[in-house]
């Protein structure tokens, strides 16, 4: 086992520890387990950053031809967004979803390590970073909104049905906090998603001389964008709050998952990680 393999394994194990100890801390009501989750996630994030930096130094632009790099970068963005939201919302509850997602993405990055992408020749670093960087940040935000949305719907149902709030729910932050996570995800995520799509289409128009090539990923992204635009409009203009944005965010996340798993791994597409 090479040193870099060992390094990756340690990062994965730290994310795993974060994924397990937070829910455990909630259920067993042990504050130290929750602190442990936060520290291991932070350590994983630090090592992850080092890993990405080393990899970039080692491989340089060739990195962009590796599926592993994209997955790993996405995981890194997820954790980054989580730390930003944690700092802004003062609630660690979103680590329920962050650490597991980071773990899944990071492990799948290890699974696709041998995959080499057919990156188009007229590759532009500017367009690319606009396309990939923005989509990763907005995906991370959608994932947060999904986690917050599930928690919102759960807590809201408890309050509406006047169910006795069990000890576990007592730890849940307020509905307003979850709704604010949705607000952040929508107000920042939608512009980023839009930029990403525009950059992608512009890039495509330069590279392939056509704006749209009816790639499955393009189609599903347009559907996602329309739904995202609807949510953005309803939320910002009509003042939607609570249930409806929460549900829409959940659907958005499912669409993104379909797009990520289905298109990148299963269908023939120029976004595919398959050989």
């Amino acid at each position, binding site marked *: 086992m090479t040193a870099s393999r060992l390094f990756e394994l340690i990062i994965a194990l730290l994310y795993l520890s974060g994924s397990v100890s937070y829910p455990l801390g909630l259920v067993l009501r042990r504050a130290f387990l929750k602190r442990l989750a936060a520290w291991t996630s932070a350590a994983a994030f630090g090592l992850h950053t080092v890993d990405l930096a080393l990899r970039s130094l080692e491989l340089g632009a060739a990195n962009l031809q590796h599926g592993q790099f994209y997955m790993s970068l996405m995981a890194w963005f997820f954790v980054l967004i989580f730390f930003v939201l944690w700092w802004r919302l003062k609630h660690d509850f979103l680590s329920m979803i962050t650490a597991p997602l980071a773990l899944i993405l990071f492990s799948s990055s290890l699974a696709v390590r041998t995959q080499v992408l057919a990156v188009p020749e007229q590759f532009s670093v500017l367009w690319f970073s606009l396309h990939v960087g923005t989509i990763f940040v907005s995906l991370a935000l959608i994932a947060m909104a999904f986690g917050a949305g599930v928690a919102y719907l759960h807590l809201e149902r408890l309050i509406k049905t006047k169910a006795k709030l069990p000890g576990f729910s007592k730890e849940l932050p307020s509905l307003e906090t979850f709704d604010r996570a949705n607000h952040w995800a929508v107000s920042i995520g939608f512009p980023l998603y839009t930029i990403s799509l525009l950059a992608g289409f512009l890039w495509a128009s330069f590279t392939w001389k056509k704006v749209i090539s009816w790639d499955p990923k393009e189609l599903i992204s347009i559907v996602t964008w329309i739904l995202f635009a609807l949510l953005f409009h309803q939320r910002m203009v009509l*003042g939607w709050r609570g249930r409806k944005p929460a549900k829409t965010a959940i659907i958005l996340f499912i669409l993104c998952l379909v797009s990520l798993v289905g298109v990148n791994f299963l269908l023939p597409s120029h976004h595919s990680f398959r050989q």
Partner: protein
Amino acid sequence: MNQEIYLVGLNHKTAGVDIRERFALTDCDPAATGLVIDNGVVSEAMILSTCNRVEFLVVGSEEADMRAKILRFWADQCGQPSGDLEGHTYCHVGDDAVNHLFTVASSLDSMILGEPQILGQLKTAYRNAVEKGVAKVIVNRLLHKAFSTAKRVRTETAIASSAVSISYAAVELARKIFNDLTNHRALLIGAGEMAELAATHLLSSGVRDITVVNRTLAKGEELARQFKGRAMPFEELHQALLETDIVISSTGSPTAIIRAKDMKDVLRKRRHKPIFFIDIAVPRDIDPDINGLDNVYLYDIDDLKEVVEENLAGRMQEAQKARGIVAEEVTAFMRWRDGLALQPTIVALLDQGECIARKELRKSIKQLGPNPDPQMVAILERLAKSLCHKIYHEPISYLKRRSLEEGSAQRFIHNARRMFNLDEEAIPEDAHLDRKVQTGSK
């Protein structure tokens, strides 16, 4: 005729809010309405009617079917079929009744364990009974003891050390909905002890300010001054709903004052900002359908009951201690009451003896001739009196000793009365009560 203590009623555990609404007795005069008639069947009564309970405390004859009599009276007063009360009421007799009353007063039977509000309501009910002249010896003593028991429970246990109340539960819920109460304003519709308590709690939990809307603006303004808030006329209720996020409603309105269809418009204007309604009025002020709207949360008084149950777990131990205190006080009260039954018996015994002594003395003095020697008369008088006292001394001390034993007091007094044929003699009931008052006020 023997007197017994009865307690008949319903509470939040036995009856839902709809039954409590229908059988509430907010202003009932037991004397004027004929519950207490001077025939010995019902001699004393007190009616406690709050939003969580309606209870009759009655002192009356042992023989009558008191439960049926009270239920009939109650249903008549409310204009409701008495059959609807069946299955929702309880009837406690004797020490069970005393125990129930003390338990209620110590707020061990409250919807929220340890909530002291019931004590104030009980004091009001007692004051009404005293003013109407239907609280006499037993009810007087019983209520005074109930209040002192409640005080003991409050000071000797931790049951009321922290605020456990509807309002506390409401604040906890508000915290589940709103992240930070300091950014939110509260609205108080109507006045009332519980609503004011909730408002006080909200303020101390950091809510930004309180707006008061009341039918009579002057009263609203007075309340607003108390909370350093502002008052708005009732007509501007909808405007107030646009500006506030936590609404406590407790008006005496017989119909809903906020309806679901009005609320849709309000919500649009609020841009769907969440709003939390706490309806503590019975009958309810707020259309229950409102809870079905997005971003609107409604809890009525019964719902709050559910919420607080989890807070109660930690207080169970304190409640156990409190029940011990209540049991002690019940025993003390019953001993007093049994002694009370003994007291008139002793008095009647001595009366009987003195009566016989005086009769025999008159006869003997007659035999001494037209001009009896005053010294001789005095000696005879002393002789008669001390004879009677000496003769009755042993039976009386026997009765006193026996009455300290649990349960046997009633039986021995009953036997003594039959043995000396005390009840043949017509002793006016008022005379009894006077002596009881003297004994009771010692």
